[in-house]
């Protein structure tokens, strides 16, 4: 059987699941961030494969925008983490519970 849309989508889903697992399981903020990137990439892969198999470039345009926004998001997020680290001396989710009552 030839490789088709389903195969790519399966890979995308699995990658998404891995990212999700990292977000929920890992406790280092930076690793959580990387896991988020994984999830974004999984979405990118799904979009590109849709684009390819539907003969429509709009999906790729969307991926282009996602990559751009992801870059901006990472820059801001990392700056926040650094600022947070300066204040708390920790980059660990379980130390960031000051919103708790």
């Amino acid at each position, binding site marked *: 059987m030839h490789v088709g849309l389903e195969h790519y989508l399966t890979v995308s889903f699995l990658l998404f699941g891995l990212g*999700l697992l990292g*977000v*929920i*399981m890992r*406790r280092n903020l930076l690793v*959580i961030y990387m896991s988020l990137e994984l999830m974004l990439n999984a979405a990118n892969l799904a979009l590109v494969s849709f684009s390819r198999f539907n003969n429509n470039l709009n999906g790729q345009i969307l991926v282009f925008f996602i990559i751009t926004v992801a870059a901006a998001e990472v820059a801001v997020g990392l700056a926040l983490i650094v600022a947070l680290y300066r204040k708390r001396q920790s980059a660990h*989710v*379980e130390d*960031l*519970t*000051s*919103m*708790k*009552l």
Partner: protein
Amino acid sequence: MKLELLPWLILFLPLLAAGGITLFTLRYRTVSALLSIGAIVTGFVLSLVFINANGWQPSSAESIANWLTIGGLHVDFGLKLDALSLMMLLIVTGVGGAIHIYSFGYMHADRSFSRFFAFMSLFTFSMLGIVLANNFIELFIFWELVGVSSYLLIGFWFEKPSAGDAAKKAFIVNRLGDFGFLLGILMVWGLLGSLNFTVLQNKLTADPAVLGGMATVAALLLFCGAVGKSAQFPLHVWLPDAMEGPTPVSALIHAATMVAAGVYMLCRILFLLNADALHVIAWIGGFTALLAALIAVQQNDIKRILAYSTLSQLGYMVMSVGLAGPTPAMFHLTTHAFFKALLFLGAGSVIHAMHDEQDIWKMGRLQKKMPVTFWTFLIGTLALSGVPPFSGFYSKDSILGQALSQGNYALFILGAAVAGLTAFYMFRLFYVAFLGKPKTQAAEHVHESPAVMAWPLRVLAVFAVIGGVIGVSQTYASQFSPGEARESFGQSLVEPLTHSPAGVLVGLAFIAAGFFAARALYRDAASDPLPEKLGGLATAMKHKFYFDELYEATFIRAHDFIAAVMDWIDRWLVEGLCIGLVRGGTDLSGRALRLVQTGNLQTYAFLFVLGVAVVMYFVLGK
């Protein structure tokens, strides 16, 4: 030129002044005072300009702006402009203006000078609102505003416990009357479907029986408001206590304007009052007049004597309204405003000179030291006593004439007797305080008050003399009984004699009796000889017939008991059972839900994902 904007300007200028003083100029005493005085004097001038341009019955009688509409209830914010309101406008701004100017001198040493003028302006605004209101809702709102500002002014020296108590008493007693008033308003609205005076009047003119059986009840409920505001029996107790406020306040609120609101309101809604109601009103007025006059005889505080005389005169006015005579009532109201303001300001001048001494038995022989005060106070006394040709003579006589013409001889005799008592207590006051020997050191070293206080006295004195013959009565008559021929000056000078000579003669006889009795008893008295002669009656008079004590023992006790029961119900049944259960439930569930908020990002992510999974299951997975 119609100058339609002028009434609005007159109404809102004092509010602007009050707001401006409160917001910006509290620190600048003189500026504040000038703002306030400027607002009211400008209002007076503008009123004159408006009347000059449009006459007493402006063609555009009402100017209206829609205020709010709730279902079938349309409330306008409108101004009613006719002879009644325009004349009141002049009185409020004119007499009020004189009092404002006088206050500039009287209050000069006070720490809260600016605050005083802010309150005065607010009060003026409220009073003008009552005068100009063209519907019940508007009237009621300004009515309450008057209550609030009178509370503020009576309690102006709030650091004195007695002033605070007096303010609260005035406010609460007024609330009792207002409760009835509001019920009356609602009843009128429920029965007639409108609150606009003009509309109501047209409806009643078209069909006098439209109110049906409720007419008397509605009228009496509305009268309740007047009872409270104009301090009629049985709600008269607040007015004498309200003398705790500064003297200009007494002059402004309790002589010239606020208490007049009740009478004014009765005249405004005269068309709603039927014969039964009028009967009740007349007798309550007459009884109040007699009661207050009796109490005044045995008071020693100069301001309290004047306060009870005010009560008595208000009783007169209400009685006149009850005798279907709005014109005499308003006439007396106007002249009374002149001479009572004059008397209060004179009293204030004396008190000021005596360094806040108010007991008349500590004064004496003031005519040399304070000539302006002496002579103007004398004029005020003569006018109040109804000595011809002073203004009080004409107005009081027109009321007695009204009683005669209605054939109500009982009330006529009562009125005449009260007139005699009035002359008695006023000359008692005059003899003791101004003549005779100085009774204390302080009385020997008094000085005349400054010009800023003396000039309002002079101006008011002039009006107290000529107030009866300058056409005030005719102006009111043009409103209430149109078609009567206008009289010339000469005619109006001798009008009482031509109109009801019997009344004049009887009235003058009583007044003369009162005067001579006072002269005989108090000419050189060092202490009051009356208690020995009257015994128990005098003690009762001195204690105001024990009304306060009576209320204390009955109403306040009963109120305390009801309050205690309600408190128990509120605390244990409402609060404890109903609210407690709800609150406890909320609290408990809140505490339970709080456990969900762990503050841990990943718990949230986990729950979030589970939620997404549920949604996805319903969208995709089925």
